């Protein structure tokens, strides 16, 4: 049982983060908080990939003469790490565009609270 928990607790922590992020995106009414939820959600996925790349008793994927590279057990899996570098940048780009949209919304309506915003949009 302990072993089972030991093997899987990281995934569950990530799921918790995912749910928090999703909750923020779907339920919060402040648009900025939605963006924060989005950031949490994206980063949780990144963590999941990184967790998947993990191997017990392995070192970072930089070639080290002390660890023979013929045996992949010696190094962490480099592929998910690489992919996540890309994913992080993609995430940042999305957040950037989200902020640009928030600026545009604020310029047009002077608020980022969804109920107020809906009210003002309806009264146009």
């Amino acid at each position, binding site marked *: 049982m302990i072993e089972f928990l030991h093997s899987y607790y990281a995934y569950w922590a990530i799921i918790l983060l995912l749910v928090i992020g999703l909750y923020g995106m779907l339920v919060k009414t402040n648009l900025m908080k*939605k963006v924060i939820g989005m950031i949490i959600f994206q980063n949780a996925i990144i963590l*999941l990939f990184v967790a998947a790349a993990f191997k017990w008793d392995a070192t970072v994927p930089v070639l080290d003469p002390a660890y023979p590279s013929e045996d992949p057990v010696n190094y962490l899996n480099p592929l998910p790490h690489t992919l996540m570098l890309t*994913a992080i940048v*993609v995430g940042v780009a*999305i957040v950037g*565009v989200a902020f640009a949209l928030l600026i545009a919304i604020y310029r*047009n309506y002077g608020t980022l609270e969804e109920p107020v915003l809906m009210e003002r949009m309806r009264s146009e």
Partner: protein
Amino acid sequence: MEAWVHLAVAILLPAFFGALVAVIFPARWRNAPWVTAVITSGLAFAASVAGLVYTASRGEVRYYLGGWEPPMGIELVMDPLSAFFCAVVTGMAFFVFIHGKTVVPRETPGKEAAFYSTALLLVGGLLGIVLTGDLFNLYVFLEISSLAGYALVAIGDRRAPFSAFRYLILGTIGASFYLLGVAFIAMETGSFNMGDVARVVPALGDSAPATVGLILIVFGIGLKMALFPMHGWLSDAYTYATSTSTAIIAPIGTKVAAYVLLRGCFYMFDPDFVREGIPLTTIIGYLGAVGIIWGSVLAIAQSDLKRMLAFSSVSQVGYIALGVGLASPLGMIGAVLHTLNHAVMKACLFLVNTNILSRFGHTDIRRFDRTFRIRMPWTMAAFTLAAISMIGLPPTAGFFSKWYLVLGSWENANYVFLGVILVSSLLNVVYFFRVLEKIYLRTDGEPYDEKNEREDAAVEREESPASMLFPTVFLAASLLVLGLANAFIVTYFIRPMIPSGL
């Protein structure tokens, strides 16, 4: 063979190259971004058609980027399915760009370069999704196209940024779900290459993470596709954006999501497993069926033409989902053919919408009257033809995709789908003939007399300029051609793409 391999790259490169070029011209060359967009999308279109013909006759093309064989490197795969979708995407983009010559400078003054650059990025991203053979690479392209999509939706009236923000939140959820699904599949199979995944998954037997991964991908992509309960973003996004933005996003955005759905369900996974192991395709099909009815009913309730067309998109996407849901060769033919048909119809209708908007300044159906026909006869003729096709009357293209779907429904003995297709056609009649009556008939109920005739004779013809009229009428006319040539398309282009397991 050697030279043809490069076709896959030749489709992909022009769009991104054009996006880069479009922004570097000095501001006083006002038409330069437009010319760039038309030329690059035209090149991509030509390459796509060449690719389509090539793959139809000689099978798929695989291009190893950087020379690294998969699963180490990333490959571009141009098989009949992806070549077909490339042709649809680039073709629609080409015609919409031509149409934008005078509209874009009016709707987004001073931002033509950014507009065309973004639009080309959208096209490039979508082409990347279609062509890539790598799951993670697909995510990158998905985000490129999504970002461009958000920005295109955000320009428009005052409400547009908010609808774009909602689209962004939901779109990001969709893309993240996709990535999550990819994570699970990769952790089970050890590879991000679609071909590898397709080989490994059957060997795994019943794998819970891979299944959940597929479900996450399907629902993530379902969000992008505006599949029924996830369609909320679409109507506002399409309505408040500028009309050219809508015209470029609407025909191709949701279609590429449908491509991912097809790819995931029938190519990466064993169709039998998806159909029977987990009733995933059946769920997709029923969601599509509900979406067809729901979208049509809401379309009837709209008084604005653009919004009506947006809801009709929800309904039409449902047909594609329904074809996927049948999970049979006929269903697949119906779905793929409807992708093409609906892309052409919707592009044509949104271009008509733009023509009306730029001539009359509004698209409020309640204010349409018979002078529209006299002032813009060709545009209205195009609208009529596209509307008939949307309803699904022969010999226009819309009829035939429905025909294959109806055949498929009978084959599966799925009477619910059958009923939905029939009922929705009638609903389409309601909302399109409502507009047609307004355009062509006098609805004031007075008898036609000399006074009316003099009034009608006094109305001047003010058709749109040729750059707008040509794509509109061409797309409308091609609906007839596609209708009559559908057997050819099915036999030569769609049959070869049906996976062996289906």
